[in-house]
């Protein structure tokens, strides 16, 4: 009887000891490998694209969509992580308002000859020691930050801008050059209609300018069944997926989006139109790869 009681007490002590120090066996990183980052992202069901930075050998960038926001996770030499999401540029007053109240992120306005956007950034210093849970928490907390930031910026972000109801070729070409997009210009069959071929992150894109009245972005992918075409259109906004089966040549699927300029557009609206298509290309490529 006493022996049984002793065993029970011993078991109880063992259980309590294990519960008292749940983190005892958690691995602590002071330098995190890209493989570990990838495992953590996969564990969070995050479908990412990994790209080494073209300008910094120590920087690896993971891009993904989360709760409909396009995020980038920057990993600097395994020693610190930074989450970034871009938003359209807003007045500094809003940026400052956010920074005054924020604890776990900062807003930054990037506005110069080449850039015109706001960013929400959050950093995690790995060098002091972090666990997998720390990183997961860092990402999940950023989810909340980004929603609050978006809500803050939205209501009163109004700017006076130069607006045109027709976008002539020279204006569009100036925008493309400003975005550092090298292009090949091709005259269309109709008068005053031009196409611009360029590459965006390995995707071949065509931007059509129909007499300055409307723009269309288009990229071709392998042909997919009509049911998949419909499924994608059902689940996504702002784009149109179309199956083309030419009489001569291979069938293909086109990802398309249009901007009606006749109501009046600014250069910033056109840049946003071109920029956001990048994300659509990535998402569609993932869809057809499955």
């Amino acid at each position, binding site marked *: 009887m006493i022996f049984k009681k002793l065993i029970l007490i011993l078991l109880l002590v063992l259980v309590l000891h294990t519960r008292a120090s749940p983190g005892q066996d958690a691995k602590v990183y002071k330098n995190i490998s890209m493989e570990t980052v990838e495992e953590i992202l996969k564990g969070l069901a995050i479908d990412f694209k990994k790209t080494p930075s073209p300008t910094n050998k120590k920087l690896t960038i993971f891009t993904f969509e989360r709760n409909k926001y396009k995020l980038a996770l920057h990993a600097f030499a395994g020693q610190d992580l930074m989450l970034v999401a871009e938003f359209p540029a807003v007045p500094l007053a809003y940026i400052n308002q956010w920074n005054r109240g924020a604890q776990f992120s900062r807003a930054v306005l990037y506005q110069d000859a080449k850039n015109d956007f706001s960013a929400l950034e959050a950093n995690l210093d790995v060098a002091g020691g972090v666990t997998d849970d720390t990183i997961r928490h860092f990402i999940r907390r950023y989810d909340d930050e980004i929603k609050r930031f978006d809500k803050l910026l*939205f209501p009163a972000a109004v700017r006076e801008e130069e607006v045109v109801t027709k976008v002539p070729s020279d204006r569009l070409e100036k925008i493309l050059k400003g975005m550092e997009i090298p292009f090949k210009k091709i005259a269309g069959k109709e008068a005053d209609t031009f196409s611009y071929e360029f590459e965006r992150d390995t995707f071949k894109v065509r931007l059509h300018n129909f007499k300055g009245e409307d723009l269309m972005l288009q990229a071709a992918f392998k042909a997919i069944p009509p049911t998949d075409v419909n499924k994608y*259109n059902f689940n996504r906004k702002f784009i149109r997926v179309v199956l083309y089966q030419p009489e001569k040549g291979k069938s293909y699927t086109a990802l398309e989006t249009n901007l009606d300029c006749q*109501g009046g557009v600014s250069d910033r609206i056109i840049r946003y139109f071109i920029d956001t298509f990048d994300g659509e290309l990535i998402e569609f490529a993932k869809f057809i790869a499955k």
Partner: protein
Amino acid sequence: MRQLALIGGLAVLAVMLGSNLAHGQKAQTEKVFRGLPSKELESILKELDIKFKKAPGEKPGVFFYDFERNQFKIRLYNYNGSDLWIDASFPKLKLQEINRWNQQAKFSRVVLVKDNDGEATSLESQLDCRGGVTLGMVRQFIRRFQGEAQAFAKFAPKKKE
């Protein structure tokens, strides 16, 4: 002499007008909204003489506006000011027919959807406001869709009652 002056004046006017037309519309400064508040959207609907019925969507900050235009029942959604969605329902079409419309469409798309009565074809268009919209873009978006609905009604067998 007066006649000559008049002819000269008209000639100058013609040259100026031609110059403007050749270069397209001149740029002017307008408000660009990053996100479209309900108040602005409702002003535009009233301006377009659209009598609407407003109701909240399933999620907070989402509202939809039901109205009729040229006998089409149209629904316009405003998702927290960040994007607009406009649609009209038509009878079910085969996917091949849907794709045929989408091949030639610019300002809309057609999607096969499930509704209360089974399957239907949704003619729809979305406007992303997050990068900025002018009120003119919103007016154009609504007017354009009416044109798309008329064109699609001719393309499709008959409209849904």
